[in-house]
């Protein structure tokens, strides 16, 4: 028996198991496909987009989408008040959104996991200090705090990302600390201590990999949060600055034309909605597949 199974590597087994649980959630699979499609569109924006996103065509301002009266197929989703192609701007905007999502999640997760690990292993006074600071950050409405931070740092996409990362960080700290607290009393951690593992090895190699499942779920969900917050900051004029084709900024620029030209606000809004929805659906599936508390059997 031993000989026949020895060569089965464990890695694909775990991946396959993950996929089995993930596939059970239909919404999550749809979310994954939509998300993948958006990523592909963002990556291929240069090839797909019919126009340069910042070039203005003065002869074609506020042109309606191609299928409605007065539209033209050279601007499939119409143009904005400055004559820029909305489809091209949306495609390039997708890049910003994903870039923002990735950067924010990486910053927030790295910082949050580090602080959470330290809080989980530290003596009580340090743990208390870290957690109370996180409680204070959490007690502000997140968008308001981000606004204040951007006001201090100055409005730009980068500063908006930093602000949002700081606002999202406490969730990771709490999650990591809670997971570390439950893991560190387990026998295998004690066993690593007996084996002579140092503090750093205990934190990063013994405990952290066993805490990752809920953190991955949180990362997926805060990815959409980050996109939403950056759009909100952009809409308030505190995020990406024009003429950057960022979705929230596009909404802000088109605000005064809402009644006259529905397409200038509808398409960026739809883009945000669909992206965030698909990521959230996917995150739910991830939770089903990774969270041991929700796992059947």
């Amino acid at each position, binding site marked *: 028996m*031993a000989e026949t*199974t*020895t*060569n089965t*590597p*464990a890695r694909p087994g775990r991946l396959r198991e993950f996929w089995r649980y993930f596939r059970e959630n239909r919404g999550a699979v749809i979310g994954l496909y939509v998300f993948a499609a958006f990523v592909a569109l963002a990556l291929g924006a240069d090839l797909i987009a019919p126009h340069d996103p910042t070039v203005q065509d003065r002869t074609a301002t506020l042109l309606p989408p191609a299928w409605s009266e007065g539209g033209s197929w050279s601007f499939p989703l119409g143009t904005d008040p400055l004559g820029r192609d909305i489809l091209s701007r949306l495609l390039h905007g997708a890049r910003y959104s994903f870039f923002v999502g990735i950067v924010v999640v990486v910053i927030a997760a790295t910082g949050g996991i580090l602080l959470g690990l330290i809080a989980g292993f530290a003596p009580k006074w340090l743990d208390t200090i870290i957690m109370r600071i996180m409680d204070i950050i959490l007690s502000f409405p997140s968008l308001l705090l981000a606004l204040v931070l951007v006001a201090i740092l100055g409005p730009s996409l980068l500063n908006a990302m930093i602000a949002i990362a700081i606002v999202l960080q406490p969730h990771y700290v709490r999650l990591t600390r809670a997971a570390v607290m439950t893991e560190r009393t*387990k*026998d*295998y951690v*004690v*066993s*690593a*201590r*007996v*084996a*002579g*593992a*140092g503090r750093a*090895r205990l934190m990063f190699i*013994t405990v952290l*990999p*066993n805490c990752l499942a809920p953190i991955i779920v949180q990362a997926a969900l805060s990815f959409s949060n980050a996109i939403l917050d950056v759009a909100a900051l952009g809409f308030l004029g505190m995020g990406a600055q024009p003429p950057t084709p960022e979705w929230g900024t596009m909404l802000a620029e088109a605000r005064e034309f809402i009644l006259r030209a529905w397409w200038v606000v509808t398409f960026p809004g739809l883009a945000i909605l669909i992206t965030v929805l698909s990521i959230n659906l996917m995150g739910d599936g991830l939770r089903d597949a990774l969270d041991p508390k929700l796992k059947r059997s």
Partner: protein
Amino acid sequence: MDGRDLILETRALRRRFVTRKPLFGPPVEVRAVDGIDLRVRRGETFAIVGESGCGKSTLARMLVRLIDPSEGAIRFENRDITRLEGAELREMRRHLQFIFQDPFASLNPRMTVGALLEEPLRAHGIGTPEERRARVAELLGRVGLLPQHASRYPHEFSGGQRQRIGIARALAVSPKVLIGDEPVSALDVSIQAQVVNLLQDLKEEFALTLIIIAHDLAVIRHMADRVGVMYLGQLVEVAPADQLFTRPRHPYTEALLSAIPVPRVGAKRAARALEGDPPNPIDPPSGCRFHPRCPYATELCRTTVPELAIGADGASVACHRAQELTLEGLAAEGGGRSPDAEKRFALYRARRSEREGANPSSPSQLTEI
């Protein structure tokens, strides 16, 4: 082997846990381990028995400094290790290794068996990567697993196999003392015998000293050279295993022995079943801690604490009436078997050692107890 050569000893070792800290007044404490003087000789198998909650696990964990003692001292090879920190503590742990009770909880589920066995070597900076890999293969073979198993994860193994991985991990750094906290009680009976035999073989091969915590007296009788009986955080009797089982001197030991089922038709059962629960260790009884449950208790027992007195035969007992009482133990080892059965066992043993000589790494399936 010098009988007086102590490898590990404790002096008046105590550990208190705070259970409740009221806003005013003194905190409520449990004295989990309350003044243990333990002397473990080099090369012996020392067993500690007692019912649940008597402090055996706390004691075992203190011996490897996983729990810090509140008072008292632990001496390893005549060196005080009670307050070691950092690198010194790590170096000391190289010689004192621990086997856990639950083989399902004590192996990191995210590490391969190879990485698990390599971890102690890496932590102590022993060998080059190739040497370590060779050592891992050797260790796996020694506990009856295949070298290929190194790339697998713990969840792919059975309970007995996992416990053997735990033992291999403890052995990796060539310790002098192996402390097992109920090393077999989470396993099936058939697997227990396997692991017990493996431990004994390893003990002889590597000249280990074993300290086994257990509540299963059958396992202990099979393994131990000397046995310490714990009750409510204190040692009440320490004696060579044979003597303890056949001629117990403390009433609590007698009660423990009478609880062993006798696998024989018409066996005489001693009517010494203990009544009541063990007292609350937050508020232990006055005098001898066993007196509320002891059938032989006198007025003296209620008021005065008995000392653990070393008797003429090297055994020690903490009982005021140890001299006058004649307590009932078990029949001598082997007495329970008919001569025919004894002959068959002898034959079986001979076969087994023959087979093991040819293939020393295969763990035996023998379920002799």
